[in-house]
């Protein structure tokens, strides 16, 4: 068991565009680290460099305190679970799981014992003599896990191991993998594009985009305090509402200019955030759908909206709202107070299953003032102080 350190690790393929750019990341012993991001963000390349399957262009990568840039995969003592499992089709489950041990010259008895143990953990004991072809998707996935487990390696590397499973099985295996990892306490780097997997499985989550690390934090911190608008929009389903708005001074203090409506910002944000000056370039304002609440009657901290669409998900309803121009009657989208408002002012709200809203209704909504997010309009970085 060991810790893993990426220090300025860079990978440039032939086209000179870095696939991974200056990645610095530390995975502690026994930690479950999730690399998450959209496709092409460099997460898989980072994992493959860790496995030794890709050369490292620059920077240093160490496992257990030893730089492994020039160490072959087989000498790194890491085990990898591939997206398509890559089970050896000509071997039985037991042979698949014991293969690495056999290569390393362990005795037959030893191999059989370790395979037996791993199979018990994974509930594969009765399938040991089958070929991969005769297994279901979930079983194959478990064999791929087993192949990693038997080696008791320094680290587990997993490349989207659940993406080939159906939704229900994925939920099951999510818990299963997390359980096994906690049981074995082996440092794990887990790559996925699914932010739900990232949230539920990781001790910490590293969000990547375009080869660069955006933020690495515990799932809750990531959710509550995203460092930039990308992370804010990527984590959470449905994603955070992000509106590009201007700031204005009103009688009650600083307010957001949402079309013709004004929303007061609690004074505390002026101290906790580097808010830009009033009438300046504006900010990107973020609020999560669950922080949009329905109110009776309008007030200074509420907005008047119209229901455009509703998606009933059973346990909750997603309501798509557009801000109503208070002056006009049925204006759907309020726009253009200068060049400040770039997006159509729309909000998604998460509501209880019994909330009887229907399309066309006019709703007054309150945005929970404890959970406002502000990002720089240009760089997208969070304006929170001390970040």
């Amino acid at each position, binding site marked *: 068991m060991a810790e893993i350190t990426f220090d300025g690790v860079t990978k440039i393929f032939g086209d000179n565009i870095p696939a991974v750019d200056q990645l610095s990341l530390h995975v502690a012993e026994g930690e479950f680290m999730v690399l998450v991001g959209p496709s092409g963000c460099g997460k898989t390349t980072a994992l493959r460099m860790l496995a030794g399957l890709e050369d490292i262009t620059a920077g240093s990568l160490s496992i257990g305190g030893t730089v492994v840039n020039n160490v072959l995969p087989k000498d790194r003592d*890491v085990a990898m679970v591939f997206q*398509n499992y*890559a089970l050896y089709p000509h071997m039985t489950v037991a042979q698949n799981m014991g293969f690495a041990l056999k*290569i390393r010259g362990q005795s037959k008895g030893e191999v059989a014992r370790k395979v037996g143990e791993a199979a018990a953990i994974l509930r594969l004991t009765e399938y040991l003599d089958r070929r991969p072809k005769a297994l279901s998707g979930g079983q194959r996935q478990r064999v791929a896990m087993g192949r990693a487990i038997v080696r008791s390696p320094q680290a587990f590397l997993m490349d989207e191991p659940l993406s080939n499973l159906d939704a229900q099985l994925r939920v099951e295996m999510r818990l299963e993998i997390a359980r096994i990892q906690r049981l074995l306490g082996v440092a794990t780097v887990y790559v996925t594009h699914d932010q739900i997997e990232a949230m539920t499985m990781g001790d910490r989550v590293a969000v990547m985009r375009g080869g660069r690390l955006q933020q690495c934090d515990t799932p809750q911190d990531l959710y509550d305090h995203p460092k930039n608008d990308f992370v804010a929009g990527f984590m959470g389903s449905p994603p955070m509402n992000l509106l590009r708005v201007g700031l204005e001074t009103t009688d009650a203090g600083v307010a957001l200019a949402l079309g013709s409506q004004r929303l007061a910002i609690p004074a505390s944000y002026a101290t906790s955030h580097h808010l830009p000056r009033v009438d300046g370039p504006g900010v990107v304002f973020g609020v999560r759908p669950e922080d949009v609440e329905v109110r009776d009657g309008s007030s200074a901290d509420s907005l008047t909206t119209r229901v455009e669409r509703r998606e009933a998900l059973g346990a909750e309803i997603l309501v798509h709202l557009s801000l109503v121009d208070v002056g006009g009657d049925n204006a759907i989208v309020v726009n253009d107070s200068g060049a400040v408002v770039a997006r159509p002012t729309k909000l998604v709200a998460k509501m209880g299953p019994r909330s009887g809203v229907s399309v066309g209704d006019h709703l007054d909504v309150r945005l929970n003032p404890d959970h406002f997010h502000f990002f720089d309009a240009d760089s997208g970085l969070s304006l929170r102080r001390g970040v």
Partner: protein
Amino acid sequence: MTTVLTPPTESGSHKEPPPLKPPPRRIGRWVLFGAMIVVAVIMLYPFFVMGVTSLKSESQFLSGGGFSWLSWSSLTSVIPVGQEVLSSTIVCSSSIFIILCVGLPAGFAFSKLRFRLSTVVFLVIVSAMMVPLQAILMPEFVNVTKLGLTGGYTGAILVYAALGTPFSVFLFTTYFRGVPDELIEAGIVDGLGYFGALWRLVLPIAVPAIATVTVLQFIQIWDDLLVGLLFIQNTSDRPITVGLAVLAAGRTTSIPELMAGSIISALPAMLVYLGFQRYLVKGLTMGIDR
């Protein structure tokens, strides 16, 4: 890979598509059936001729009537069938062994271990498939003779191996392209080197491709005349196809005996064909069926 592995002919896992037409009228069915019978008769004609003719003596053949085992009993004294079948077997198996030993690693290299210029080299080797032996026959013959390889089987084996290699490289490369890269990478992470991966992963996975190459090359080499005729100088080392052709061209051997010899020569290739039909189809359509 799946289309390559399970061609639509025989494999159990592949469902036959349902019949194309709605149940046709009964008369149409019978016409169809009749046409198929006619074609079958034509295609079976050579076997019929061989069988019937071989069961006649020379005089019966000339007069047309009667049957006897005479041609079969005198066969070995006219054609050294045993020796020739043995020669064919040696030449076939040795050439195929070389073709496999050379083609499989090369296919692995061209599909999974790409190196500088590997695509160009691959294309050059594959285009060698189009070079007929006759085009380079003279220099080839002189080279092999000068190297002293026409005495035994060596020359013929090497020429067959060289002629079969481009196809086998092509087939193995196509086959391995269908194998996910991750399989090899899993082996590398598990502790294999590339030589180990070749021996312990690639070779076992390639069994269907090996079968295809073997079947196709067996029929090709067993049935070939030109190489055996020119590159095996000792008359006593002749493969059976060459032996038959030379006797036939000489126009002095009795036809029934030639036909009996033909049956002997045709049997191994037919058995291989009937046993491994689907590999043959697979090889023929490699690279075009999806």
